[in-house]
């Protein structure tokens, strides 16, 4: 099976960490870095790299940004104008790719989103929120860390309901405790209705259709069982 690919633009401290984490999760990493002096370091760190400049449109194709197996594009240059330019051209080149970028200034988020980024992360904000949680709700932070960053067996997973699943057309509330096993349904996203996430506690009467994405919490094993259950086809 071919591995899913991630392309990261610019090599710096944060992109190296992201690359390491994603490589650990089994993605193939390609670093796009024009600076020749960094090539050695990228090689030592164990990633593939390309020195083609992304400022030229034809190079976007050359590094494979239009391939279906490229899952995401990280735009992590320190220069925010360069980021804007590249996000804009990548989005124009590939409508479906997931683009994630960083901005150190909250006011900058909007232009980046307008340029076509799916998600703009703000390191200062993320860290500040984390500290706030530590002060305000320390236990929840711990629980979420365990779930999100997989220190324990408990995971968060999203399951998309396929067509003809036995749960296609069932009310959310009918997925009762017994069927759920030892898992918790956080909620679902109904692509047809909106991009907004519906929490389980409010969406009891929501009808599950194919294409909906359920977000569930549970131990890896239970999740597997639940997943196969959901994907049982109607006879």
């Amino acid at each position, binding site marked *: 099976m071919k591995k899913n690919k991630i392309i990261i633009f610019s090599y710096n401290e944060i992109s190296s960490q992201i690359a390491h984490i*994603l490589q650990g*999760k089994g993605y193939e990493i390609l670093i796009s870095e024009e600076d020749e002096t960094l090539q050695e370091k990228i090689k030592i760190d164990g990633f593939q790299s390309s020195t083609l400049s992304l400022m030229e449109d034809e190079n976007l194709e050359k590094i494979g940004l239009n391939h279906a197996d490229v899952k995401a594009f990280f735009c992590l240059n320190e220069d925010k104008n360069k980021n804007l330019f590249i996000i804009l051209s990548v989005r124009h080149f590939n409508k479906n790719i997931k683009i994630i970028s960083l901005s150190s200034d909250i006011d900058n988020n909007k232009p980046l989103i307008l340029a076509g980024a799916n998600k703009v*992360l703000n390191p200062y*904000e*993320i*860290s500040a929120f984390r500290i706030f949680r530590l002060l305000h709700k320390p236990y929840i932070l711990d629980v*979420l860390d365990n*779930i999100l960053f997989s220190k324990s067996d408990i995971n968060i997973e999203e399951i998309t309901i396929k067509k003809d699943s036995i749960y296609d057309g069932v009310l959310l509330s009918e997925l009762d405790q017994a069927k759920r096993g030892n898992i918790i349904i956080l909620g679902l996203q109904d692509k047809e209705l909106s991009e907004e*996430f519906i*929490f389980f506690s409010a969406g009891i009467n929501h009808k599950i259709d194919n294409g909906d994405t359920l977000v569930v919490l549970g131990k890896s094993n239970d999740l597997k069982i639940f997943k196969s259950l959901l994907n049982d086809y109607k006879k």
Partner: protein
Amino acid sequence: MKSLIISFAYFLESSKNYYQIKHLVYQLLDDVNFKYKKYFDFAMIFLVLSTIAILIYEVNHPQLEILNNFEIFAIIIFIIEWLGRLWTVTHIHKQIINDYEKSEFLNQPYFLAKSIKKIIKDKLAFIFSPMSIIDLLAILPTYRPLRILRILMIFRLFKLLRYTSSINEFSQVFIEKRFEFFTLALLFFIAVIFGSTIIFIFEGAGVNPNIETFFDAVYWSVITITTVGFGDISPITLPGRIATLFLVVGGLGVIAFFTSIVTTALQEKLQSIKEDKAVGEANTMREFTIICGFGRMGQVLAEQLQSVKEKFIIVDINEKQFQDKKFANYTTIKGDASSVSLLKDLGVVHRAKAVIALSDSDSVNLAIILTARSLSSSINIIARANRKKIEKKMYLAGANKVIPTTDITALVASEYVGQPVAFDAIDDILLNDKHAVMEEIEIFQNSSFIGNSLQTIDFDNYNLSLIGIITKSENNKFTFNPDKTSYILKPKDILIVIGYHDSIIQFKAEILSQKSKLFKRKSKHEKK
């Protein structure tokens, strides 16, 4: 007689009421941090201002009976206040007891007179202190034979100084800058003597009809040197006019010197007054957080803390960080957060609950951690680490939690690749949006839920999902999705639930008042 006094002193020493009353009077008069003091101060300021107003009114109006009575009332209050200060300034009975016990210890006869001498000396020291003299000057003019001293009533205005600590600070300026002021006064004095001598020599001996005595000459030179120049006395001879020219130019210099001393001194003072105010605010706070470093992270954190009404103080070495209007209602202090004295003043030792080191320099953060930890072993210290390598050192220095900024961002960013929907859900929860919130609910020690199974709480009824339970008694063990029938609630358990804000508030209120709906239903069940 002597033994009677001694036993009375012991009686006072052991009397709780006496102490309480004396302490209350002291707080009212002198304790800046006492919360009712400001009402007392306002009342006194009103009295002072109103008696001054009466004085002005009576200059060209007939005396009114009611105003006289008010005057007497005010004076009585002033006298009581002064006596109160005289009373609380030292403890007479303690002096007696101390001396008595000392002589008992040394096996020597005790002389009451000796103690009385000491007591009188202490009290006199108070009576002749500047503030007490101002008080006395405010009282004395009412005494009929001293009616001529009515003008001294103006001194009551100085009483206002007592009730406004910041004006007090300004008067400090004159003490701190006394060397400069002394130089200035000397310069002024020399110039005046110089000028008046010249004018007196040239124009004093009947030349100028306006200058008859040396005092006229001094008066003229002071009016000239200060650039006021009334013109009632003016030089008529050439040497006199030349002297005037020098005096006027010299006068400008003196004025400039004076202005610059006062303005710089006041500016310095203003800064420290502002800080004292912030430190004073910190002194009245409890359970607050100290944010050290007010960059972008500090701003986001402050915003969040503000939104949940948590108390905090911000320290930054660069005051420019505070200048935005947005931060006007934050308590801010300019200073070095790694300095022991500042952190101590802010109450790291007993009152603050957390210190957050958010400087963008790792070494500064390390210094803040070490300083805070050296002051308190129990305070919660959270620090930001810009480089991962420093993380371990920060834990060694005593941080409770270190946040490596790039690490966290990288983790979050890479999580976003895999499960964006799940991530958005968590993001929503984390960012405390209007949607759903995750909340910790603690089961209190004497809650009646203790010993019952989880089933007794009907989460569905509140539209809440239970994620898990943290068992404090078992080293904060987290049980994910515990079995509702077999899990028995223990004291200090923490329930982690997800739900909408409103339902969580309702749930919390009801679980605290212990009337969960299902709980009732279950008790009915038991009756059957």
